[in-house]
């Protein structure tokens, strides 16, 4: 059984029909990439799964449970964690406080240890733990956002445009990190405009077009797909 199952969801912004029946599934341990142009509905899909928006039709199953109408804050303790687009770190809190907010739903004693392992994963954050997050560079803020999401000990990590606004050198670093996290058993659903990078690390991918899934295939096949190459990879 798939860890996440999205069945024919329709989501609206007021009267605007943003998602017109999106369906896909994510198996445990996979890295799945959602790619597509601006306004194709990638972020809306993530927001619907994470509970920030509710689908008007269709359903989302997580671990066999219907979470279509669950509120976002209740999903965190069930193991779904999100790295929002534009990073969304709390600019006025310190690095350590940001990480602590990530573990907000946890009441166990392991938070201290997890802080340490975050700093091992991202040494830059360890050097700057008392620094206010707003003063970090873009790349460091992205690292912080990811580290913060991991603090909730998620089984499913939703990543929204992790490469946005980063220098190419830093983009490589971010994707390396994502692979490393996946190798530790966290399932990853990745929304990316940078289709090239996303399809290199993903197992499977879905191409969204105007609120619908246009193509679904393995990442390797998608990289060879002519339409994908022309439209998203810039290869003629």
């Amino acid at each position, binding site marked *: 059984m798939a860890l996440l199952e999205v069945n024919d969801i329709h989501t609206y912004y007021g009267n605007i029909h943003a998602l017109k029946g999106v369906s896909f599934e994510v198996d445990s341990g996979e890295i799945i990439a959602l790619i597509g142009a601006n306004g194709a509905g990638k972020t809306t899909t993530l927001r619907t799964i994470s509970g920030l928006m509710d689908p008007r039709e269709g359903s989302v199953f997580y671990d066999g449970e219907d979470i279509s109408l669950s509120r976002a804050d209740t999903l965190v303790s069930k193991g779904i964690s999100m790295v929002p687009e534009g990073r969304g770190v*709390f600019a*006025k809190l310190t690095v350590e406080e940001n990480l602590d907010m990530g573990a907000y*739903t946890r009441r166990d004693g392991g938070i201290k240890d997890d802080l340490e392992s975050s700093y091992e994963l991202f040494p830059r954050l360890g050097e700057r733990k008392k620094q206010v997050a707003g003063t970090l560079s873009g790349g460091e803020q992205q690292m912080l956002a990811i580290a913060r999401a991991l603090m*909730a000990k998620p089984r499913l990590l939703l990543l929204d445009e992790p490469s946005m606004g980063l220098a190419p050198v830093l983009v490589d670093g971010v994707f390396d990190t994502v692979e490393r996290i996946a190798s530790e058993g966290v399932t990853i659903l990745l929304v990316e405009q940078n289709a090239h990078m996303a399809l290199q690390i993903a197992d499977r991918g879905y191409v969204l077009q105007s609120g619908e899934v246009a193509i679904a295939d393995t990442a390797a096949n998608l990289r060879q797909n002519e339409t994908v190459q022309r439209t998203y990879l810039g290869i003629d």
Partner: protein
Amino acid sequence: MNMLRSQRARTVLTLGLLSGAFILFIGAVGMIAAFQEREVVDDVFSLGQLLLVLAPFATGYIASDRLRESEAEAQVMIIGGVAVGLLTALPTVILLLFNSAEYRFLLDLTLKLVPFVVATIYAVRLHRIGSDQRLIIGSWLAIVVLVGIVTFSFALIFEIKGDLRTVLPNISRDWVDVVTFDHRNELMTGIFTLLLVSAGAGAAGSIMVLAPPIPRKALLYGLGVTLIVGAFGETVRLILQENVDRDTLKLIFRRDTLRQNPALLLFIVSTISGFLWAKFGQQARLGFSNLEPSRRRAVNGVGMLVFAGIMLMLPWLIGRTLSDVAVTIGIFVLMGLGLNIAIGLAGLLDLGYVTNYAVGAYILAVLTSIGPLGRLDGVFTFWMVIPVALLAAMCAGFVFAVPVLRMRGDYLAIATLGFGEIIGKLAISDWLKPLIGGAQGVQAIPKPIFLGIELKNPEELYYIVLVASLVTLFVSIRLNNSRTGRQWMAIREDEDVATAMGIDTSRAKLLAFTLSAATGGVAGAIFAAKVGTVFPNSFTVFISINVLSLIIVGGIASNPGIVVGAVVLIGLPELLREFSDFRFLMYGALLVIMMIKRPQGFVPSKLVSHEIRTGVKAKMAAAD
């Protein structure tokens, strides 16, 4: 060279006319005449005249400082200072001329010329951009007629009434007396004096800029101390009265005014101490930071002990009248700390804070009153009702928070503003009259009794406020450093991301509103016990605005800032009685100046000042 010169001239002109407009304005609203009531130094000058001198002095200082930036020579700076001083006096001089019977024709002339001047300026502009001849003539005529109607009607009013006071009621004899330095009957002498004083003050400002830093600091410090002691003569006398015998007091003060010799002595002493501090202060601070940490802690500890001692002894040091002011300040500190939970930590702009204050006051009034409305006849005491008032306010906070949970920003502010008004209307309504007395309010509220002692004087009530404030301060510091506090900060910065962290934003906001309401209830109850009666007109939107302003002026999300804000905004108007008519004018001006010059408040919280310095934007794109 020419560019530079015109740029300098513009600086002087703008600053001078700005301070001139300021002086004219505060005269026209009656502040100068009102401040005249208060002598700063006996028989030398008053607060009103002080304003007349201080404005050109400060502007001269600023202008010279700017001139120095453009590398002006000393004489240029002093000429600039004199010019600024003269320009400061200019609008007032013109108004003086208009106001006198002799030179009234100037006003008529001006009013008659204005339409032609305005029309001609406009016509010249049109001509410059190459407009059509007929259009130019047509608009010239139209403007002359339109503006003329207005100015000719003014001229007619003055003609009939023969007095400027029909239009500017505060341009009175008192005002003339102040600005002419008591030369009402020799107008020209008066004008000359005003120009001379103003120019001198402007030049003095420039000289201050030229002076080497140490004497400058010393002199400014000495002047500042003397003027503040003089302006607050009444307050200082009240404090001394508690500790000095009458004869000594008489030597220093004539009624509430500082005598000349003590003022001189004070000036000399404070200037010397200012000099010593300017010269050796840096060394002292350096020496302190070089001390071993344990020693430093000891010094800090002694400082804290002295401060705590002063706070404990305060009512006996400052006497009854000032203790009363201190209690009022304390009540507002309590409310400020409470409201800060909603505004400073959670970012919820609550403009209906008066609700909690009213609930607390009325709960205490109804439950303890021994008058006709208190049907419980002394069964409940103050101490039993305080927790009830606290809980009732929390309930009110909760109930009013539920409908506004989904609102953000401006909408939230408007909704809460409405709730505050509802409470005021309920308190005065006939519907609740049998319970809380309507417009007559509740009377005969007994004073708290502690261990058999009736706490009926402000000196005793002060301790209740002190303890309540300390408890609130403690809770609020703990909250600031807790997960609960950080959860609120997270919501303030980005609600969506906070939700994505697993924060139940509805619950967190409810908690913020509820906790924030608690201290308002206690403040209201203390207020009711202090005054002994509760009337609906004590609970207006101005309470909410006062509390909000003191938070903003003191420093948002900063606990010490709130105390400072309360002292400045609540304490000062109580001490300067003449001030009270202009309270909201001053509030407005202070808020505008603070927003421009020091948006982080007097005593900013570390986070907020950091944010403002670096311009970090809290909001980042959350979704597409």
